[in-house]
């Protein structure tokens, strides 16, 4: 895949003296990593630099298989004013990600092989993080007719979702799960019962009652979580549940996994670090769907992530224009940018407090995304693609949205101090991002 990225690098690259953490090989040791021809040539121990190789000293830093975010919105085609594939992929690289999966809710919707191919080519042309397109489950995301999944897989789609618009028809979801089995790709669901959630703009609870905003109850998510788990059990298809936000969802996924259902799940960094309190004062940069929930939910999500019930960490990177967020809360769009803060947030809220070990965090951000979505990478094993993230888990920095590579500035972390930052991102053996200071 992405052959022109892989072949772009001809010079050998040696990363010297970093802490190599590669859960795919059970590795956590100081050593060198050598890349040649865009692939991992050797990993671990003290290596000799071949003649003409670039040698970069990464001592004091963590060297991990490239981070992969399977849930981003890059807005192209359609809303190039808020993000393009190129700016999004640049933001990804700046955040330590070597690959992202782009959701299909573009304009026009990415529901056909031509658009899938377009997104993929835009990613290759940009030359930052790899961009893997999602295809829509249904034509125009309308939830009526199954889109041409097979052709989209042929054009490079790695998964399917009507993200942002839950598949209301259980029959259509069942059909998608069955049909997608032929291509061995996950069907990803944005779990939300719209009859409960419609008009809601934050978590239903005390804060929504105080602010006079219509709430979205946890059950709006959980009803779809269990429905889709049951459909996956019936069909044997692979259901991937997007951005879980409630305690009940974690319990239901655990129930499904215990019964051997082919279900995987993801959680966003913001749902692990912020509660509905962040909405107070009608902060539209704390408005997203699913909404920020409560401490109880955060505890359950952390537990689910640590015990493997939840497989992946994602961002749900969703850039919006400043003017769109600068308005009455109920009218502002859902979503926040996350690519350039996720690693810092995860280090600050998961790694350093001991919720996850370094291996667990890298597993959830790299190895498992590759495995669950059948993507290359997620490992530093010899012969793998040369996608590597180098980061400093201890570096303290203050989030300044004005410095983002993303066009989006809509972050709830502006001015927050985070501990942990990407320092260098390597895709196909080529350095695509290096921190300036």
């Amino acid at each position, binding site marked *: 895949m992405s052959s022109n990225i892989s072949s772009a690098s001809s010079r050998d690259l040696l990363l010297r003296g970093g802490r190599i953490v590669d859960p795919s090989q059970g590795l956590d040791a100081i050593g060198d990593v050598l890349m040649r021809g865009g692939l991992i040539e050797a990993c671990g121990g003290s290596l000799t630099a071949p003649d003409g190789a670039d040698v970069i000293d990464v001592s004091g830093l963590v060297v991990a298989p490239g981070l992969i975010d399977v849930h981003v919105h890059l807005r192209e085609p359609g809303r190039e004013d808020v993000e393009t594939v190129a700016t999004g992929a640049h933001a990804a690289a700046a955040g330590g990600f070597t690959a992202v999966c782009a959701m299909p809710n573009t304009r026009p919707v990415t529901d056909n092989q031509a658009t899938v191919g377009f997104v993929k080519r835009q990613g290759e042309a940009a030359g930052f993080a790899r961009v893997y397109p999602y295809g829509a489950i249904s034509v125009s995301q309308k939830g009526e007719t199954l889109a041409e999944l097979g052709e989209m897989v042929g054009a490079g789609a790695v998964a399917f979702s009507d993200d942002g618009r839950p598949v209301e028809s259980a029959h259509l979801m069942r059909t998608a799960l069955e049909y997608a089995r032929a291509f061995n790709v996950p069907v990803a669901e944005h779990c939300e019962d719209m009859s409960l959630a419609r008009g809601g703009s934050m978590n*239903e*609870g*005390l804060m*929504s*009652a*105080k*602010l*006079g*905003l*219509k*709430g979205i*109850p946890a059950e709006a998510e959980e009803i779809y979580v269990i429905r889709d788990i049951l459909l996956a059990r019936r069909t044997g298809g692979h259901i991937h549940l997007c951005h879980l936000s409630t305690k009940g969802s974690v319990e239901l996924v655990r129930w499904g996994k215990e019964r051997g259902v082919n279900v995987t799940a993801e959680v966003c960094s913001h749902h692990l670090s912020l509660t509905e309190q962040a909405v107070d*004062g*009608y902060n539209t940069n704390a408005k997203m769907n699913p909404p920020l929930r409560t401490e109880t939910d955060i505890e359950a999500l952390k537990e689910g992530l640590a015990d493997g019930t939840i497989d992946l960490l994602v961002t749900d990177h969703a850039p919006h224009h400043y*003017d769109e967020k*600068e*308005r*009455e*809360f*109920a*009218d502002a769009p859902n979503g926040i940018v996350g690519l350039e803060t996720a690693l810092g947030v995860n280090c600050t809220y998961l790694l350093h407090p001991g919720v996850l070990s370094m291996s667990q965090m890298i597993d959830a951000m790299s190895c498992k995304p590759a495995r669950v979505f059948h993507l290359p990478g997620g490992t530093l094993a010899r012969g793998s693609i040369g996608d590597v993230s180098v980061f400093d888990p201890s570096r303290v920095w203050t989030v300044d949205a004005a410095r983002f590579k993303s066009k989006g500035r809509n972050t709830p972390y502006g001015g927050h101090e985070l501990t942990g930052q990407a320092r260098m991102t390597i895709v196909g053996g080529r350095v695509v991002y290096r921190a300036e200071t």
Partner: protein
Amino acid sequence: MAGSLGKDLLGLADLSADQIRLVLDTAVPFREISERQIKKVPTLRGMTIVNLFFEPSTRTRISFEFAEKRLSADTVNVAVAGSSVSKGETLVDTARNLEAMKIDMVVVRHPASGAARFLAERIESNVINAGDGTHEHPTQGLLDLLTLRDKFGDLTGKRICICGDVLHSRVARSNIWGLTKLGAEVGVCGPRSLLPNAIGEMGVTVFDRIEDAIQWADALNILRLQLERMQGGYIPSLREYNRVFGVTRARLDAAPRDLLILHPGPMNRGVEIDSDVADGPHSVILNQVTNGVAVRMAVLYLLAGGRPELAEAAKRGAP
């Protein structure tokens, strides 16, 4: 300019008990102005106030306008049809345009919760929330408090039950915060489908039966039932609402004491309240209207930087 209330009045959740008492105490001398032959003092002469209404309102807008005119402010009414979104111009642009015309205060009514705060954070003028979505309606809360205080004196330990559609009511929220801060016990009564799910965490007692609420309360504040709630599927019919939750003479006759009856208006007679209750001897519904002007005069005066101890002098006509 910032008076003892701060720059803006956005909600009673933001005010201390002392600040609430200050407004009520200030309103008392102002009430007398409306009793005069010449109902005007020069207190706010030269100030420009814009009444910016994004939602239709008769009572609140007129009440504010009387309050402003009796204090000699220059007022402009701006009624925006529909929401700012449908109009095309954003709320922030509307605000900045008004400010560019050098105004002193904005009284804003808007269908979106948080709209008054949004405005207040973006312009230098004082902002008074005249109702934002289902969030707060602080001057209504204050006039309800004044009306209750007129009858009860101290509100400590008094039991006030808010009846009806608490879920969608900005009046209910302002009442809950204001009454709680002044030491009253607050109850709510209505179908559970019209109460916030988290109502139990708001420090109030919940009554499922209006009969029980009437047994418990010293006063009922009966909310208007928005007729569109039936289309929204929250209640089966207005007829049933009246039969199950309506405040009727017969139900009040069973009470162990006389209950004060408040209603923020406009009333749906025969739905949430029967006419013989609305017009009965213990109804203070028209006192609320009178107090509305006085409370709004007090808020305008205090936000304009008026010193509370000079309210008496202001009333006498000293500039």
